């Protein structure tokens, strides 16, 4: 991966002094991410360009990486990491131009302290968020951004654009500031780090960002992405940055999560719990419990004497089980999690008062719904079944959701209210249940509620 930095400051060769790298002497540095080569494609009075070329050994990269227990996929071996500018280049930058980043200019301290005309070129900068994100990140810092998305493959225009920008930044800045900004913003644009982050990352962020980040309008986004969305770290960093800025501490980072999501999920859990209580259910199945958000909420409620969460994903269940393990004995004795699948009959799920399927059916292929129906309404056959699913009509009210788009990549379908009623009515009829419908969330007069709930009750129960 390559970064070039050009100045037309006079004399331009001052750049080499500020960088502490001789223009006529190409140098190579071993860094933790590969060999960093520094050389000058041009170095005269009018213009001086330094190039940082990082050579990554992809074999060593694949070997040193990842959890040995995890199954590796082909992309752990073949990927963009040796080519696209991101966190690895940032590490090399810090290593090779570390002194310049501090702002120390040696005999040319005045030059170092002054803004100079700069042009930074990154032919392949990883940027999840496209040109718009690059502009949001760099423009407030005084850069003019010239960026074009690299097509995935010019021979297949239908594949669209890649996550890489051919990025040029032009501006008048102090060299040290420019380097610090790149140091922080390269991984921020990329949105992922090549290593696991720990608390020392907060220090790095505050050190490199202290001079410019507190006042940056995208401070929260930058902190969140730099710190891999680790909430505790992000909160610490934001606090420390606010102190530098003497501005009030910001609200919690939810910058990238649609504001609608979290409250709706909570409302859903609340409604489901209230319905279960109203039905007098004591022994409850959470079918498709995932990581256990609803399960734990039900477990805390002594109205429920036994709560069993099942999910088809062994990975999600491991997380749910860990959360259950942390519960006090009194609560934990009421909860169990185990693996099951709603398209296989599972006789151990028979005999419960109620089963809930919260945002589950839309993850099942329509062709497999009859198998789910048989497993839930036939084999398990609890007295009550609660099913929630998105109301697709309400999608029109979601900002940022393209027309016709579904709310989640894995949704196999999203039903209108009429479609849900038709399906639910059919199930009830075939299985000997009655059904009633309950809206969840704000019930729009035209588009209805965001979530719809069907409450099935066994006819003879």
């Amino acid at each position, binding site marked *: *991966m*390559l970064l*070039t930095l050009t100045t037309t400051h006079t004399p331009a060769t001052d750049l080499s002094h500020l960088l502490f790298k001789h223009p*006529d002497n*190409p140098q190579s540095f071993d860094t933790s991410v590969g060999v960093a*080569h520094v*050389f*000058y*494609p*041009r170095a005269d009075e009018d213009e001086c360009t330094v*190039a940082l*070329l990082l*050579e990554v050994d*992809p*074999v060593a990269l694949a070997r040193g990486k990842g959890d040995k*227990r*995890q*199954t*590796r*996929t*082909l*992309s752990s*071996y*073949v*990927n*963009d990491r040796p*080519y*696209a500018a991101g966190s690895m280049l940032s590490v090399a930058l810090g290593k090779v131009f570390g002194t310049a980043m501090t702002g120390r200019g040696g005999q040319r301290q005045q030059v170092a302290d002054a803004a100079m005309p700069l042009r930074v070129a990154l*032919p*392949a900068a990883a940027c999840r968020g496209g040109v718009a994100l690059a502009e949001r990140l760099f423009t407030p810092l005084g850069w003019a951004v010239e960026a074009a998305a*690299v097509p*995935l*493959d010019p*021979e*297949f225009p*239908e*594949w*669209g654009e*890649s996550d*890489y920008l051919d990025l040029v930044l032009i501006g008048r800045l102090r060299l040290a500031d420019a380097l610090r900004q790149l140091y922080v913003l390269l991984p921020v644009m990329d949105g992922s780090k090549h290593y696991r982050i720990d608390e020392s990352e907060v220090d790095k962020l505050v050190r490199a960002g202290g001079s410019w980040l507190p006042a940056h309008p995208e401070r929260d986004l930058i902190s969140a992405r730099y710190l891999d969305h680790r909430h505790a770290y992000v909160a610490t960093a934001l606090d420390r940055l606010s102190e530098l800025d003497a501005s009030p501490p910001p609200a919690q980072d939810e910058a990238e999560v649609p504001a609608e999501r979290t409250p709706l999920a909570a409302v859903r859990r609340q409604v489901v719990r209230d319905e279960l209580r109203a039905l007098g259910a004591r022994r409850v199945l959470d079918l498709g419990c995932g990581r256990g958000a609803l399960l734990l909420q039900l477990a805390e409620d002594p109205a429920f004497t036994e709560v069993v969460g099942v999910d*088809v994903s*062994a990975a999600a269940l491991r997380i749910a089980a860990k959360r259950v393990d942390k519960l006090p004995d009194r609560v934990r004795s009421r909860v169990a999690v185990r*693996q099951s*699948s*709603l398209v*296989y*009959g*599972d*006789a*151990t799920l028979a005999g419960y008062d109620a089963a809930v399927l919260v945002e589950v059916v839309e*993850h*099942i292929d329509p*062709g*497999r719904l009859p*198998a789910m129906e*048989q497993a839930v309404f*036939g*084999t398990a056959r609890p007295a009550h079944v609660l099913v929630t699913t998105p109301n697709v009509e309400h999608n029109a009210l979601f900002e940022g959701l393209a027309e016709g788009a579904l709310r989640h990549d894995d949704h196999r379908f999203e039903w209108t209210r009429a479609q849900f009623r038709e399906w639910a009515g059919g199930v009830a009829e075939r299985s*000997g249940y009655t059904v009633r419908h309950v809206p969840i969330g704000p019930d729009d007069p035209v588009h209805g509620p965001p979530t719809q709930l069907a409450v099935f009750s066994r006819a*003879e129960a």
Partner: protein
Amino acid sequence: MELRIPDMSLVVLIGASGSGKSTFAAKHFRPTQVLSSDFFRGLVSDDENDQAASRDAFDALHYVAGKRLRAGLVTVVDATNVQKEGRAQLIRLAREHNVLPVAVVLDIPERDCVERNATRPDRDFGARVVRRHVSELRRSLPHLAREGFRDVHHLRGQEQVDAAVFVRERLRNDLRDRTGPFDVIGDVHGCRAELEELLAELGYAVERDAAGRAVGAAHPLGRTAVFVGDLVDRGPDTPGVLRLVMGMVGAGTALCVSGNHEFKLVKALRGNKVTIRHGLAETLEQLRAAGPEFTAEVRRFCDGLRAHYVLDGGDLVVAHAGLPEHYHGRASGRVRSFALYGDTTGETDEYGLPVRYPWAEEYRGRAMVLYGHTPVPEVEWVNGTMCLDTGCVFGGKLTALRYPEREIVDVPAHETHYEPTRPLRPARAARQLALTDVLGKRVVETGLMGKVTIREDRAAAALEVMSRFATDPRWLLYLPPTMAPTETSALPGLLEHPVEAFAGYAGQGVREVVCEEKHMGSRAVLLATRDASVGPRRFGIEGDGALHTRTGRPFFDDALGGELLLRARSAITAAGLWDELGTDWLLLDAELMPWNAKATGLITSTYAATGAASTASLPAAVSALHAATARGLDVSALLDRTSARSANAFAYRDAYRRYCAPVSGVDDIRIAPFQVLAAEGSTFHTRPHLWHLDTADRLRAADPLFTLTRHRLVDVTDPASVADGVAWWEELTAAGGEGMVVKPAANQTGAGRGLAQPGVKVRGPEYLRIIYGPDYQRHLDVLRVRNVAHKRSLAVREYALGVEALSRVAAGEALWRVHECVFAVLAMESEPIDPRL
């Protein structure tokens, strides 16, 4: 003195401390058969005499006894058992597992017991305890028989104890030594004329008495008829049916189990109060006409009928209403009741009739179960069970199944002799799979490799993929095995080369191999059907078939996929394969092109992304280095390296591009079948590959959707032939081809540990760039260290599972039997293996 105990029984020893129970048990039973309370006290407390541990000890003892009884093993409980409560628990345990409890009382004088205990230093509890035991035993003795023991053997004194000999008795339902062949006949219900016709159809010679009445029948080949019960009631000639069947049973040419109607008839004939309905009135009337002597015979006969039989080494079970596996060969009121009436769900249908508990849908036993009781319009296999009651008396037909041939023979009813309460309805098809069919550690018995074990965590991982992404299991009859690459080549610039593949087969004694071009697409399994009725009829699902990936995902949406299936159907019809292979469905193994038709996501996220990043950054680096060179800087080594990498990046992009082409409809799709997997009644893994490729070529001739697979035969022992094979591979790969697959020309070769790799892939150097990375040839020394052995072992195991799935499908086995193999292949695919192999 002979002590008779049934084959499946719980033997409860009863006697005071010191009465010699342990010695007695050790003399007559194996140590594993005897569960002693002392031993269990030791297990739970480290002290065999710690009476405070008794409660836990008996808990553990009952638990182990339960496991043994469930497995049908004779189990002896060595405890004093002088208290009624203790015995009651054991009787309950025996009943729970439907085995018979037998009591053996060791009635030894008190002083002898005390004396014996005195010689044992660990028993220091003195005479008082023994006295209490003896007195409790005395009080119990008169009531033992009424407590529920099937037999009470009372051994009075040491002499009788010493003389006792146990004799194991077979249960009366145990006819495992009768191996048939059998003709199992459904509910007759007084339809004598139809029965005579059916017997004639089956090849029995009917004997008649002077009055011309059928009084017996025998098969010239010594076959045995087996009646599933309900001979009587509703029909026009119950006495005639009984006369014939009683004659056959008497002569040993038939067996008969009791139906609920026989059971009720006996009660009625005994004079018990019964409701006269469901055709009983007609029977009683007819019997009155047949006379008291015959009626008495009928009563004796029906009273003596067993509720079920276990036949042919345990492979066949006949019971009137069917029988779940844990009841097979067991004896209890509950077993008898199930065999006669079945079980109900507690619900009633719209005719007010009880809804039957669908035991057959859950049945996973090894034995075939044949039964009647619930009339169905057509017989159907449900998990290896079949209901043979086709409602003859209601105007349906009288049906028999030839065993072991599994052939159906039936004769139509002459008329509707009796109006049914509700119309005959087909049994609910058993297409629901149970979680227990797939989850947990599993051992699948395969024809090619014996037992193949699936680890529990692999099954857990596969469950999500199968549940969330795979096509409906009713269509998912096969998943292809993974394919191992050839051993690693040492030639410069190469990781793989055909020479190792040929040598590998030569080493396994395979002389002739076929080299097949490796298509640049995705592995596809195509299930085609002859017409729209085949799906519902044969597989219990609407649709025309399925086209799925190697992990079971559907290739396309319903519209495009449906169109491809119709094209496949027409091509198979045009090629004349339906009739030639005697089938109305066909399963094909194929490659589907282009690659991006299914893999666009993978291509864009990984391959094209890598291509985009590398071709954007490396040329820029090269020109920066050129500029530096022009300034007189010495960066030549770095420039050379970077230029090479830049060239590799473009070569990498070219490599994946060859696999991609725009897909806008069915005409952009090509399917290259290379193996016919299965059809009704047949698998084809033993037919030579040339037959398969020739069959594929006939499809190609019928429809250009299908494309051919170029191939060469190579004799691995002939250097010229080998060189020819190598040259062909070089030609394929020089043109950018993926490479080839080398297979034994004869197809499946060897078995068990000697099972040859079904195929070995030899990939070309440019294709490997996609897999190993643009610059992989710079790192060959490192990449050559790769573990092919594990992948090879996995490949043969998956192959054995795949062939097993096909054999089971072809044989028409139950869905769960097929699915367990298919699921196992998917589970194995979750093994962490270098994905580049």
